[in-house]
């Protein structure tokens, strides 16, 4: 398989923790500009796969390439983030003691060393970017509130906003609609489809309604490897997927 024109290329990746094979010979390819939904039962290795891509976990074997040529196994979290891979955690993780605006400011693309941060002054361009993102995630009227005071769904949105501020090439979004109302879920689907217009996105989600809403290619993971891949209808018709995940 050719790596060129892929944004993410995993081949034969395995990792085990204390003898437990969390990822087992996983191969997954994401084309540039593609959005992919990943489904699978608990323990299928979805989060571990994200850990490997973002540099938190080193694979025991296998190849992980970003943008066709960058070997991600040789870089750590901060470097990978700077290359343009953004990640939203399963549990929304924002800086609770900061305001919404400050959360976005810390995420905003720019130099990441100490001294520029020490003497940093917000420029008009940055203010405008923050303004735009606040509009997209619909938290403009709460900009001066502490992130701790947001609802669960709003925190999810703030975290997506922080991803946007980072302006990554590839977004890894782990369970973005967990704990959201139906209306919020629909909004999030709309938001992600918007983002996918000029970014590559991987979405991990259990909510099949939401996955259908996204209308993209689906990969079902099971016991650390790909069980089935294709359109949602194809995957959900797959005997084995029904067996291990969807239930009869």
């Amino acid at each position: 398989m050719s790596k060129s024109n892929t944004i993410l290329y995993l081949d034969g990746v395995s990792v085990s923790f204390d003898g437990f094979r969390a990822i087992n010979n996983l191969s997954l390819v994401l084309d540039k500009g593609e959005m992919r939904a990943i489904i699978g039962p608990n323990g299928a290795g979805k989060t571990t796969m994200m850990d490997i891509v973002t540099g938190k976990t080193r694979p025991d074997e296998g190849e992980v390439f970003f943008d066709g040529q960058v070997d991600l196994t040789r870089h750590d979290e901060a470097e990978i983030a700077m290359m343009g891979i953004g990640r939203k955690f399963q549990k929304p993780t924002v800086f609770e003691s900061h305001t919404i605006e400050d959360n976005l400011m810390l995420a905003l693309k720019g130099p990441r060393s100490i001294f520029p941060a020490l003497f940093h002054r917000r420029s008009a361009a940055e203010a405008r970017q923050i303004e735009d993102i606040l509009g997209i995630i619909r938290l403009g009227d709460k900009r001066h509130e502490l992130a701790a005071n947001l609802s669960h769904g709003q925190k999810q949105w703030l975290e997506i906003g922080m991803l946007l501020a980072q302006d990554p090439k590839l977004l890894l979004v782990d369970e973005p609609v967990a704990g959201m109302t139906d209306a919020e879920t629909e909004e999030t689907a709309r938001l992600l489809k918007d983002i996918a217009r000029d970014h590559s996105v991987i979405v991990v989600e259990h909510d099949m309604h939401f996955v259908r809403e996204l209308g993209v290619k689906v990969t079902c993971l099971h016991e650390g490897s790909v069980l089935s891949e294709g359109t949602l209808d194809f995957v959900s018709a797959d005997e084995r997927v029904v067996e291990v995940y969807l239930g009869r």
Partner: protein
Amino acid sequence: MITGRFFAAGADRRIAITIFILLAAAIIVPLLNLGVSPASAFYVPAYIVALTGKYLCYALLALALDLVWGYCGILSLGHGAFFALGGYAMGMYLMRQIGSRGVYGNPILPDFMVFLNYKELPWFWHGFDHFWFAAIMVLAVPGLLAFVFGWFAFRSRVTGVYLSIITQAMTYALLLAFFRNDMGFGGNNGLTDFKDILGFNVQADATRSALFAASAVMLALAVFFTWAIVGSKYGKLLMAVRDAESRTRFLGWRAENVKLFAFTVSAVMAGIAGALYVPQVGIINPGEFEPSNSIEVVIWAAVGGRGTIVGPIIGALLVNAGKSWFTGVLPELWLFALGGLFVAVTLLLPRGIIGMWDSWRGNAKALRAASVAEEAAKVAVPSAISKRARSPARNPGEWSLSDPEPQAAE
């Protein structure tokens, strides 16, 4: 830009007031000591000047700890080591100033070296006859130690209680090393019998007053400096690392460098505190490396309220004033009182004195607002209360009322 924020109306009033009080004390206390006759009711005796000068050094040390503990969550149990190293650097300068006035009258070697049969000055004592060199060492030695220590510790992602334990081990190792006579720092007697600092007699009232003023001014500067750091984007990053370290990594920040910078700056501040402390107490010995000293600093910061800049200063002043009084009246009970104080503060005042003050004032304000609102329109009451209770304290000098607990990222 920083000064603009500083003088902005209403912004960080508490910090401005603290700096003003310290600068005023730096002028008034020496005046009342030197310019007023001892018979006057306003006379400040020399021993009070020396004692409060010492407390101000402790306050600076507590502030240094606050920068890393309160704002970055690094509970250092070894900050006394940086304090003592700064103190030793100053002590070495003061030793070299004694010259031939020592007991053995050796113009080059300090008394303890003559006593221990040193033939010549060890290499690391060279240069300490110049104040400027000693002053650089006061900053460089603690800073360098913190940089190297932090570089390894933070890069290996040692956090939490393990980090606290190795900082404690660091100060204990230095304690043992400095106890040895062949280290060349005076062994367990340390450095003492100082005569002059910059040509002035260290015992003289005027010098003591000047040292007091220097301590107060330095503390005021440190307050301003810490406040400026904490209010910058870097300061926000520092708190972000405290609350969700791995989030900052996935945003591309190097959390280890963020911590390393704060840790090094903090160690330098602690070193300055030690350097101001030594001429005022007239001795520096390995006892300053005692782990219990470093733990006491943590208690000062906790009592005053960590992460508040002003709190640790108040804590250091109050606890030490209490200590001076207590050790005079009931010396054998002091350690029990200190331990009890720490337990009591942890249980009853988890945010320290400043935190209690803020929440008390917040409540009072909310009540007042509520009663005003009640008179105006009964409907407005709940909104007034909830608004106040949720109002974010975004200025570094204040304590957030809705204080979010640090949370672990995945």
